C-alpha cells in the first residue's frame, strides 16, 4: 500500500465492507462493493450512498467576496440568493479549464463555499490565492475538516429526511441547500449530485459523517463506489475534470457554454470564450452511439469511414441503464452535428456509430 495515499473518514468502513479499493485523486477510495451494475441500478431505482469526502471545500469570505468569486468563476453569483447553488468553472485566461465546481451562497452575501474536485484541491487553492491580489477576501481551504456523503436516487429524500432526520431537506428544490446545526456543529444539506437522479449531498464533521453513513446502511441504502459514480454521471451527460474538461478543453468546446455568463462584465477567461463563440472552436465534445456492443474507452481514436482520424474518446461505456455502447469524444467541429456518422476504433476494428446528444439518460431531478 502506497503510504502517501490519503484516506477519508469512512476508509475503515469501506475496508470492513470488503470494497475493492483503488487510488483516486491521491486518496485510497472504494471503487465498488457489491458490483458496479448492482450499485448503478440501486441509484437509478432506489437509493445509494457515496463517500465523497475527498472533495474539496474552500470558503471565500470578506468585503470583496462576491466580486472575487465573480472574477474567477464563469457563472453569475450576483444572481444567487442565500441557499442557492451554481455550477460553473474556473478558467485560465486562454479559456482552458482550471476546474469545474459548485458555488454555495451563504446567508451573508460575502460568504461562499466552493466545492472543488479532489484531484484539484491544491491547484485550485493556489490559483485562488494568486488571483486574490487586490481583493479584500479571506480564502480558507477547509477540505480536511469536512466529510461528505452523497445520497442519490429516487428514494434519497425518504432516507435523508426520515432516517437522518433532516426534515428541512424535503423542501429543497434542485441546486439549493439548507444549513443545519447538529451537536452544536454545522451540517450542510444540498439537493445536488452527480448521477442524474434526485439526491442530496451532506457536508459535516468526519465523526458525524460516520454516523450518517452507518444509519443509512442500516436503513438499507446501498453503499456505492466511484465505479458507478462514473457510469451514472456519464449517462447523465456530465463531464469529469481530466477527461471532458482539462487545461486544454474550454467549457465552450465541452458544450458547457450555458454555465458561462458572457454577459457578465468580466471574469478570467471571458475574452477567450467570447472569441471561441464568435469564431468557432477547432473541436467539440460530442456523444457517440455505436451500433455494436464493442466498448469505446478513453483514448480510442474516432475516425471517418476511410480511416481518417478526427477525434478521440474521452469516456466510454456499455451503458448500464441504456444497454448500448456510448461515449463522449472530442472531435473536429466539422463532424460534431447530431446524426453525423463516425467510427470508433476498438482494438483492431473500427465500429460504426453516429453523433448523439451527450445527455444519454433522461435525468430525474426534483424541479
Amino acid at each position, binding site marked *: 500500500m502506497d503510504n502517501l495515499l490519503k484516506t477519508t473518514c469512512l476508509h475503515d468502513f469501506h475496508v470492513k465492507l470488503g470494497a475493492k479499493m483503488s487510488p483516486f485523486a491521491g486518496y485510497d477510495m472504494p*471503487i465498488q462493493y457489491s458490483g458496479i451494475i448492482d450499485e448503478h441500478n440501486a441509484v437509478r431505482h432506489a437509493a445509494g450512498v457515496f463517500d465523497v469526502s475527498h472533495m474539496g471545500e474552500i470558503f471565500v469570505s470578506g468585503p470583496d467576496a462576491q466580486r472575487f468569486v465573480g472574477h474567477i468563476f464563469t457563472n453569475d453569483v450576483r444572481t444567487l440568493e442565500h441557499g442557492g447553488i451554481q455550477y460553473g468553472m474556473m478558467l485560465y485566461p486562454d479559456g482552458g479549464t482550471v476546474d469545474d465546481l459548485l458555488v454555495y451562497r451563504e446567508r451573508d452575501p460575502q460568504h461562499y463555499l466552493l466545492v472543488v474536485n479532489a484531484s484539484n484541491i491544491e491547484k485550485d487553492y493556489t490559483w485562488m490565492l494568486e488571483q486574490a491580489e487586490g481583493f479584500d477576501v479571506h480564502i480558507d481551504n477547509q477540505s480536511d475538516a469536512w466529510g461528505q456523503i452523497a445520497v442519490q436516487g429516487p428514494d434519497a429524500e425518504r432516507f435523508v429526511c426520515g432516517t437522518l432526520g433532516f426534515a428541512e431537506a424535503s423542501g429543497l428544490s434542485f441546486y439549493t441547500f439548507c444549513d443545519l446545526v447538529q451537536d452544536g456543529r454545522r451540517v450542510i444539506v444540498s439537493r445536488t449530485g452527480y448521477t442524474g437522479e434526485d439526491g442530496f449531498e451532506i457536508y459535516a464533521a468526519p465523526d458525524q459523517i460516520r454516523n450518517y453513513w452507518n444509519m443509512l446502511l442500516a436503513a438499507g441504502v446501498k453503499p456505492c463506489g466511484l465505479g458507478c459514480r462514473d*457510469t451514472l454521471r456519464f449517462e447523465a451527460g456530465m463531464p469529469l475534470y481530466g477527461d471532458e474538461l482539462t487545461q486544454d478543453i474550454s467549457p465552450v468546446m465541452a458544450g458547457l457554454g450555458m454555465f458561462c455568463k458572457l454577459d457578465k462584465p468580466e471574469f478570467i477567461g471571458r475574452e477567450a470564450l467570447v472569441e471561441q463563440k464568435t469564431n468557432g472552436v477547432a473541436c467539440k465534445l460530442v456523444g457517440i452511439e455505436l451500433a455494436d*456492443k*464493442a*466498448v469505446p474507452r478513453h483514448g480510442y481514436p474516432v475516425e471517418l469511414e476511410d480511416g481518417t482520424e478526427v477525434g478521440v474518446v474521452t469516456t466510454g461505456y*456499455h451503458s448500464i441503464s441504456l444497454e448500448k455502447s456510448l461515449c463522449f469524444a472530442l472531435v473536429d467541429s466539422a463532424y460534431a452535428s447530431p446524426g453525423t456518422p463516425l467510427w470508433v476504433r476498438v*482494438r483492431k476494428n473500427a465500429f460504426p456509430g453516429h453523433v448523439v446528444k451527450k445527455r444519454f439518460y433522461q435525468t430525474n431531478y426534483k424541479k
Partner: protein
Amino acid sequence: MSKIEEGLLYSESHEWVKVDGNVAIVGVSDFAQGEMGDITYVEMPDVDDEVVAGDEFGALESVKTSSELIAPVSGKVIARNDELEDKPELINEDAYEAWIIKVEMSDKGELDALLNAAAYAEIAK
C-alpha cells in the same frame, strides 16, 4: 481470495487451459474476473480461426475496463462458448465453468511454457 483450480494450466496473462487430448479448453482465471468486475461483453474468434500463442484472440469488456485475451497455445478454434454472447456474467459466476474457446493444438509443446496451479498462485494475488 480468488480460487485457483488444481489440474489446470495457467498463463501469466491469467488464462487457464484444460487439456483434453489434443484439445485445449481456454478460459480466464477467477482472479482475472475478480479484477475486472462485472463482465459485459466477450469478444471471441470464429470457429476455424487460427490462434497463435502469445497473440490476442479476443477481449473481455467489463463495466470499467477492457482486457485482451491472449492465446496460451496455437492452433485452430474448433468451438466457442456462444452462451457468453448473451450471458457474459457466467464468467463472473464461475470462471472455470465458463470456458471461452476450444483449440485444436498445433504444438502441444507450448503447454510446457504454462504454469501449474501452485506457480500461478504466486502471481495471482
